[in-house]
């Protein structure tokens, strides 16, 4: 009895310690990312101040600190959004946001190019999903009509206007057995995943496996993302 209870206590302690370690670890990692972002942000901002009088747009982005921010990936999007809100004089940070989210600013491929980052962010994954649904319907119809050029144009629009946030609804469709999305995934992944000569079923499995391994780096941590999951 005593031994059994002792074991239970030890197990509970170990589990508790593990959970604590996990939570603390996550926080430490998150803090590290934030610190790294802050550091690069300040240095990039400094760079942009130095080139503020330049008439060439690209001089703002010719900076290793800008590249460092981009490398941090979608996890820093909340911090970027925070800066868009609080540091209104530094408009260039929105460019980093678009780049991290892989969204083009060209209105010819992104019908929502004119919207502000805050609108995009506050619309959340839900808004992206709705936009995807609209475009996806158009795309499917075009393909059904045999208008492959039109479909290709819409495909580009999906990729360029919704960015990485579109993986979530696409993969959800795949999970639910909609195999029509396979060409979209192929395009979205830039053929990063080799599914040549695979059957449709095999492709589905391959992409599911691939998604499991890449979900984190291809998910935008929208404010509503938790609720959707």
């Amino acid at each position, binding site marked *: 009895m005593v031994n059994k209870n002792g074991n239970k206590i030890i197990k509970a302690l170990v589990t508790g310690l593990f959970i604590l370690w996990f939570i603390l670890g996550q926080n430490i990692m998150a803090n590290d990312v934030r610190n790294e972002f802050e550091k690069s942000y300040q240095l990039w901002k400094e760079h942009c101040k130095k080139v503020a009088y330049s008439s060439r*747009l*690209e001089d703002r982005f010719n900076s290793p600190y800008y590249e460092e921010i981009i490398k941090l990936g979608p996890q820093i999007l909340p911090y970027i959004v925070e800066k868009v809100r609080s540091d209104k004089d530094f408009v260039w940070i929105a460019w980093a946001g678009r780049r991290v989210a*892989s969204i083009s600013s060209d*209105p010819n491929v992104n019908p929502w190019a004119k919207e502000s980052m805050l609108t995009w962010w506050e619309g959340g994954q839900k808004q992206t999903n709705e936009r995807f649904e609209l475009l996806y319907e158009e795309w499917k119809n075009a393909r059904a009509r045999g208008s492959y050029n039109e479909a290709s144009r819409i495909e580009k629009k999906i990729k*360029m206007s919704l960015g990485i946030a579109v993986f979530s609804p696409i993969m959800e469709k795949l999970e639910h057995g909609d195999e029509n999305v396979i060409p979209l995934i192929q395009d979205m992944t830039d053929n990063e995943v080799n599914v040549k000569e695979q059957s449709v079923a095999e492709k589905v499995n391959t992409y599911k496996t691939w998604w499991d391994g890449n979900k984190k780096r291809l998910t935008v941590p929208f404010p509503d993302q938790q609720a959707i999951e």
Partner: protein
Amino acid sequence: MINNTKRSKLSNHSRIYRIILLLLFIIVFWNSKVFAYFLVDVESDPKYIKANGTSTSTITATVTIGQTGEPKAGALVIFMVGDYGSVDPVVETTDEYGKAQTTFTSDTTPAWAPITAQVTASMPGWEYSLTYIRTIYVCMVKIGLQVSDLFGSVEEAAEENPGAYIHRNIDNDNANTDGNGSPINDETEDTLSVENENDLNSISIDLQPADIYEGTVKIWRTNTKARVWSDSGKGAANAVVTNSTYKMWRLYDETERSDFNDKKTHLFVEGYLNTGNTLLTAEFRPPEGAVLDYDRVKCNFIAAKCGWQPTPQERENTETCFPYIIHCEWSITQNVTPNYNCIAWSVGITDRWMNPTIYDVILGEYVEEQWVEGVHYISIDKRYGNNDNAFDIEDDMDPFYYYTALYEPIAVDQTDAKAIYYDGYHGAKRKDGCTCGAGKWVMFESKCGDGPRIEHVYNQLDGSTIGYGTRCRYYK
């Protein structure tokens, strides 16, 4: 002993004799009337004349008979001058009042001019003649007000028209700010010296000849746009003409004369609160009356005033990029905005950023336009040029100016250009209707990247450290 006594007596007689002779000699020379046959007196009217080569003074020699004091008519008086000026006539005969007059005409060299009247008289029964000479001095005065301006020293002929061009002291050399961080214009600071002040121009009063111990010297202004200091850094202790309309030094007062001599070549003029002009006058007034000579300088006060003066930080940012930009000669005409850049502004566009080309990293292609956070970015190459994904002046810039403003690169230079293009990718727009500089500056306006828009003298963005390059094309 006896010899010594005799010698002593003789010696005493001799001394007495000598003393009597000496007394007689002194009496004769002291009371010249006894000995002199004529007396000659010379006067000038006026004593002070302008050293301009034309002003005159009447010299009157009065000859009287020594013993009686009666006027001597018919005596020949010879008037002579030294190195300066001339007299006419040189020889004149005294009239019934014993007076002979001549006219002294001044030289252009300021100096004390000696004028000598010489009368020769033969005494009745004497085989000798006596010559009487009297000398007086006429002062040929010249006062000058010399000024240097933003373009060097001002020639005498140009002093009143067009005059000197001096900064209105609107800048902020000592980087002082008020409670809101706004710059405090130097012109409003005068209690303490202004550190690094460099907008006052030197002015000096040149009164010649230097050894005048009579009369007064005054410097005065026609309005309050000019202030005069005895130090280029200002400061209350150095105020000369600041609150009053003039400063006068009485040369007969040793203290004031000394003050004048200390300050006359260390004066500085400041443009105060307004552009426009002020006449500054330095004048000399002799003891006997009206102003004899003066010199006047028109001071035109100029400053870039279409906008407002930068904060110390804005100034530092701008000066870092443009080493040749000069305080007071530029101002901010619009606060920082990322909505448009210089090329856009060079044709008056304020809602688009005109870039040479735009590469969309996400799309992996050169694109015609982008929108980020409400800012519209346009590729000149794609929208106006030859769409070859590369930027050059002839194929992209020229069409841009033509399609957006109908400008062609046919202006001769900045004087007739509506827009100037710099080969490192910068455009400046003529500041239409701008009177800053009163015609001495050709003013343009540049939007500096995502920074402020500034008005500036056309060539003061040359040599930029931000890659604007060289002015290479003038459009109109």
